[in-house]
């Protein structure tokens, strides 16, 4: 069996499992009945609550994974992810401001997150090209960290100045989660994420070349500057869309790309679709764990991904430095 088919099966299994578990467990036969007919006993819980949630977690996970893998090629560092580069911070601060100002609604927060994410990208980009120098991946990471620190400070300020009610909303959102998932959020997310996701898939070969560095990439025929800007903008859009629907969920962009690169090789034409399936499945499982492990309390899904991601990050760091 081809690895990609195997991954698709695993991702499907993860989704079925996530549909079955929860406050009311739904056995497999009841699950199939509910999916088949709106009149089945568990139809409401499966169709209206769990299915959109599972699908949202899957698509958000897939997008974060593809974003992470693309950024890793872009800045030529397997430790890169949207958080390290300050994109999530920018999207987060704008979304927090929007929530604190009472600007809610399913289209408003994503839009604010976009603006914030792109603002952070512009700032990071500007910082890393000071004095007319060309984009340096190492300076880029440094600029990302600086911008993250800055957005973190603003978020702290907003939290301090918020009323108790606002504070709770902002705080819950900051932790990240899919408890608000609905068919509508899924539709909004897909509308925002579709085009940038396709753009990254189409840029797979450019990503291969970008990972070699500017000089080799250019001499092999790639307009490196333009490709970089395209990847950076698409990655920011995907990050912002994800942050808007589920808050700050870290490490999803790190886990699957790392595991799958070892399995399939680094070529992005094979890697990106596999990463989409793998990261999607990973976030579905993480969300299932988050809502079942300390029932009836629901853990923020970002806690679960961090518990898996941080040890992996440590291992990766050791390997990168060796």
């Amino acid at each position: 069996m081809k690895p990609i088919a195997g991954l698709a099966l695993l991702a499907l299994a993860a989704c079925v499992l996530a549909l079955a578990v929860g406050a009311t467990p739904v056995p497999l036969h009841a699950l199939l009945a509910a999916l088949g007919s709106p009149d089945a006993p568990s139809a409401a819980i499966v169709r209206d609550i769990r299915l959109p949630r599972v699908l949202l977690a899957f698509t958000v996970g897939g997008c974060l994974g593809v974003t992470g893998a693309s950024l890793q090629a872009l800045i030529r560092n397997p430790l890169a992810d949207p958080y390290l580069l300050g994109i999530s911070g920018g999207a987060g601060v704008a979304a927090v401001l929007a929530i604190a100002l009472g600007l809610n609604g399913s289209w408003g927060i994503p839009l604010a997150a976009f603006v914030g994410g792109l603002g952070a990208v512009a700032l990071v980009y500007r910082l890393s090209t000071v004095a007319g120098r060309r984009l340096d991946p190492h300076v880029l990471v440094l600029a990302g960290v600086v911008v993250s620190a800055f957005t973190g400070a603003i978020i702290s300020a907003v939290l301090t100045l918020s009323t108790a009610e606002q504070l709770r909303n902002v705080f819950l959102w900051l932790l990240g989660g899919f408890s608000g998932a609905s068919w509508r959020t899924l539709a909004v997310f897909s509308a925002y994420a579709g085009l940038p996701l396709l753009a990254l898939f189409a840029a797979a070969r450019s990503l291969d070349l970008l990972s070699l560095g500017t000089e080799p990439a250019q001499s092999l025929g790639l307009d490196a500057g333009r490709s970089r800007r395209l990847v950076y903008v698409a990655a920011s859009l995907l990050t912002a869309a994800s942050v808007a629907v589920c808050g700050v969920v870290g490490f999803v962009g790190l886990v699957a790309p790392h595991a799958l690169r070892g399995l399939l090789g680094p070529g992005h034409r094979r890697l990106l679709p596999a990463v989409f399936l793998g990261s999607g499945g990973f976030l579905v499982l993480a969300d299932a764990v988050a809502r079942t492990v300390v029932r009836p309390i629901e853990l923020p899904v970002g806690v679960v991904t961090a518990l898996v991601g941080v040890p992996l990050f440590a291992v990766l760091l050791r390997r990168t430095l060796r």
Partner: protein
Amino acid sequence: MILQAQGAAIRYPGAPAAAVQDVDLTLVPGELVALVGPNGGGKTSLVHGLLGLVPLSAGQVTLDQRPIARWSRRELAQLVALVPQREDTPFSWRVEDMVGFGRYAHLGPLSAMTVRDREAVDQALRRCDVAGLRRRSVETLSGGEWQRVRIARALAQEPALLVLDEPTASLDLGHEMELFDLVAGLVAEGLSALVVTHHLNLAARYAGRMVLIDDGRVAAAGTPGEVMRPELLSAVFRWPVEVIALEGAAHVVPRRRDGGQGR
């Protein structure tokens, strides 16, 4: 394929002086030209200018009479291939992937490699004697193997001009000779090559023409015999040298600074 520089100058933003100034240079098919000169003299900058990788601040560079800036990277990569001085990648590419990247400029954005592309890759792998390494990961290669793989990648581009920036910088004597032999063989088959090197003696032996760059300017250009003159090289490298003949080629030998008194 004719690559021509006229009065070319490169000045980096914020730099006090130009890195390259007033360079005239013409590369024609079927010759091996060696670009030599002291460290920091502007050799790599000149190469970057010739390939349109940095903008010129004055003068012009044309490829087949079209200004280099008006060529897209893709068009350019089908005619000119560069083996950069150094490069690294964070991922474990296989040798055949790495050489396959040479086909990038010949592929559509979404299309897969055709039989024709695979043939070009196979031929490049064989020509550089790395076909046996094709499934190896590039991080397991020795210095000499890695250089040959990068030259194979350049050949897979099927260029008319091959530019090598210090290809033997980290190689021992035997691998260095092998590499120059390989490049000379490719030139004999009709390719043009521009080789940046610190090895004056190998340059003099293999190149048809040498261009000596010092302080961003062409200090001398011509046949090896015209460039390998002791007073010229002594002045440019700021060290007294002697030039002797060996196997019919000029060889430079450094002397003691005090002018060769004693030993």
